[in-house]
């Protein structure tokens, strides 16, 4: 066994010994992955995994390094890039990834990607 492997073993024992807790959080993340387009609230996530919402929030952050909401927003933006590349109109994309207003979608997209959804889409087509 290499030094790297023994370190992995050691750290796993310290940080990831609670397997049922890990399974719950991984299931929550997978739930977000398949339901990112819906109106997801923490209550719904906690209901789905039978945990109190604050406990769930704390554990998700502990294991994924982001809050469920931050993860959800990243997921939606990532998906919206896919849809825009496929040629879906901006407004349709906005609702298809679960945003409720075009304003909040465009603003977040611009903050994270550095250009507006329509600019991003235009560049995709001029490239291909």
């Amino acid at each position: 066994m290499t030094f790297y492997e023994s370190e992995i073993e050691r750290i796993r024992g310290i940080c990831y010994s609670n397997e049922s807790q890990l399974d719950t959080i991984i299931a929550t993340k997978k739930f977000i992955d398949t339901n990112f387009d819906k109106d997801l609230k923490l209550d719904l996530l906690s209901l789905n995994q039978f945990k109190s919402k604050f406990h769930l929030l704390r554990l998700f952050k502990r294991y994924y390094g982001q809050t469920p909401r931050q993860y959800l927003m990243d997921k939606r933006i990532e998906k919206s890039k896919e849809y825009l590349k496929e040629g879906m109109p901006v407004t349709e994309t906005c609702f298809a990834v679960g945003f409720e207003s075009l304003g909040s979608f465009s603003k977040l997209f611009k903050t994270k990607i550095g250009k507006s959804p329509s600019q991003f889409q235009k560049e995709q087509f001029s490239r291909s």
Partner: protein
Amino acid sequence: MKVTIVSIPVRDQEKEFQFYTEKLGFIKKKDIPLEGGNRWLTLVSADWQDGPEILLEPAPNHFEPCKVYQDALMEAGFPYTQFDVDDVDAEYDRLTKLDVEFSVKPTKMGTVKFAVFNDTCGNNIQIVEML
């Protein structure tokens, strides 16, 4: 400031270029000749061609401490860097069939699954799937 380049030290640029393109599936982005047969050689992911570039940098051949560091990482089994994949098991199967040698088979660690292989030019490389 923007993150655009991840530098990987290599002993043989051409050999590593073949490995990263033919086996791993990266695509050449820039190839600029420099002095002494060295090149500014960068690659991108096939499905993310406007994403960050990998720079195959012949540093170990020109700067001894880099070679020492690279050798120490290799001996201890530490990956020099890591790439994200959708499915570690599938990549493991695909690469093993191409005779890529793994020092760590697909292994779960918290919220990820990972594996480590030898890039044949001095580095361990880790592939990671978020669970």
